[in-house]
């Protein structure tokens, strides 16, 4: 039981990390980035290619994160421009459709060029005992990364001037503009941040197990579920929802079965939308 819950928390932190990049972009501009999972995969492929060429893991990881951020900025500067000219539902819908298209382009190109591409960062060492449960070193690393990212993001949005500027745009775009904040610039930075987070996701996920080239759609789906349950635009909500869903996932996978588990997760997302559309910590 303790082992299962702990597994769930590890998984949940990974979910939270996955959701936070999507939730930030949505909170800021009302765009659900459906290409998010494909950007994660892109980072993974870049890292794995560099590692095959003999580049050290840490350097390869940094380049991978930068590449993901670069692609995200590219998306923002091209596809997202016409999206941000729209308002309200029109904007969200157009963003949804265009990023869906981008997801197919990125995912298709990667699957075509690197059909067997996969990233697995192996972290050696004997299992470490956490409250009496032996945990793989890779899982502990992945969870540590997720916790560190959560802490940094919360500090960034709570304490720095730019972080507060971002929050002001989330609350009220026009108001932010009136006090001298350039929403367009803020959005580009957050898109880059979201891309970099996708890169971090790739690293953390591949420490638990191989991340294959076809994982994009599934990653996007889980990010979407976490985002919806946690509340669109809330960093803390994404991690809270991630851990909750992770524990539910682990418990039901252990006691009921895997197919039902996915249905339970999906049901949780649907229920959240129906009962509390704002999500757990949404505005």
């Amino acid at each position: 039981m303790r082992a299962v819950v702990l597994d769930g928390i590890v998984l949940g932190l990974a979910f939270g990390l996955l959701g936070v990049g999507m939730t930030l972009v949505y909170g800021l501009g009302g765009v659900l980035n459906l290409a998010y999972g494909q950007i994660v995969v892109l980072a993974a492929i870049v890292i794995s290619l560099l590692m095959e060429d003999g580049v050290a893991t840490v350097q390869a990881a940094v380049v991978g994160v930068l590449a993901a951020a670069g692609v995200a900025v590219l998306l923002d500067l091209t596809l997202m421009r016409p999206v941000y000219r729209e308002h309200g539902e029109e904007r969200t819908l157009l963003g949804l459709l265009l990023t869906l298209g981008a997801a197919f382009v990125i995912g298709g190109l990667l699957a075509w060029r690197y059909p067997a591409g996969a990233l697995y960062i192996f972290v050696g060492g004997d299992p470490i005992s956490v409250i009496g449960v032996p945990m793989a070193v890779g899982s502990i690393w992945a969870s540590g990364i997720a916790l560190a990212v959560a802490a940094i993001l919360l500090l960034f949005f709570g304490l720095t001037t730019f972080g507060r500027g971002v929050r002001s745009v989330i609350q009220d775009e026009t108001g932010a503009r009136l006090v001298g904040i350039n929403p367009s610039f803020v959005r580009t930075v957050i898109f880059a941040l979201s891309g970099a987070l996708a890169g971090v996701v790739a690293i953390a996920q591949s420490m638990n197990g191989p991340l294959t080239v076809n994982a994009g759609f599934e990653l996007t789906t889980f990010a979407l579920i976490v985002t919806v349950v946690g509340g669109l635009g809330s960093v803390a909500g994404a991690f809270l929802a991630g851990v909750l869903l992770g524990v539910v996932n682990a418990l039901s996978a252990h006691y009921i079965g895997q197919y039902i588990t996915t249905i339970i997760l999906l049901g949780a997302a649907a229920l959240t939308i129906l009962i509390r559309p704002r999500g757990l910590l949404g505005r």
Partner: protein
Amino acid sequence: MTDTERTRRLPLARIGWAFLPIAVTAAVLAILPTVWFGDSPYTTSLAVQALVFASYGVGFNLIFGSTNQLFLCVGALAGVGGYGAGILANESTWPMAAGLAVGTASAAIVGGLLSWIAVRRSLGIIFTGIVTLVFSLGFANLLLGQRDLTGSETGLIVDGVPDDLADDSVGGYYLFAGLLVAFLIVFRLLQLSHVGWAFRALRDDEVAAELAGVNVSRYRIYAATLGSAMIGLTGALLAYSAGFISPATYSFDRVDVRVLVMVAFGGLGTLLGPVIGAGVFAVLDERLTASLELREVLYGVFVIAIFLFFRRGVVQAFVGLANRLLGRRTPLQLSRD
């Protein structure tokens, strides 16, 4: 048109014109096998696939194009119809017609329920999209999990199918061609009736429509139920005609994305949009023998291009251009909405 009241409101000539596109489509579909592919089972099955997607498209068009409900579960609804019919055919001795009826009714009920939930909780277009997407994924998992009934990934062989309706025979082709033409007639009849006026009103401006006395919620549920019934019937017929179904037959990435691209290409909310879209993409599929992944890339590029530059559909853009060149104002008012 037996309804005298309707005839009084719309002159007979105009009604004739309104059905002309359908007559032309039917004629083209009727002669296509003899002039093009008659003897090749491979090409026939491609054509049948195009017809199936065009039929899905008409249903989707009714739901999304007419009443702005983003149903990202076309594949799942077709699957409800297909698996409903297929399981019934295998577990009982009921005839094909009963299987079709059960499949269609199940899909209609599921679609109506989804729409009812969306309307009751006043979910916007996005949340409707997410809920229906979640339903799609849940349904796919259900198919995989219920191994005894659905055969999981291995698929399900559907018995009791007359051979001359197989999906690579000319009989199968005419079956689906007839289905498509029937759907188009229903679609056009709806457009000409008071329902069509309500659809147009609520699509242009929901609040204004509500204020003008249009019961927006009710018409949304109507559209979703009828559209889902069309999708379910198509899926059920496909199950019988193909004789074999698997989760891939109705999966999100195989069905929904294609339908969305085709309908958007042809023009959302237009009568012939789904037909034109399905036709163009069938030809593309036949010509592009490149890998599956590259085809995916191409679909992505199409989605982006369509929604960036041709928001009202490629066909509409060409009609508009032609009219501007000829110095006419848009005369195709009826076929546009």
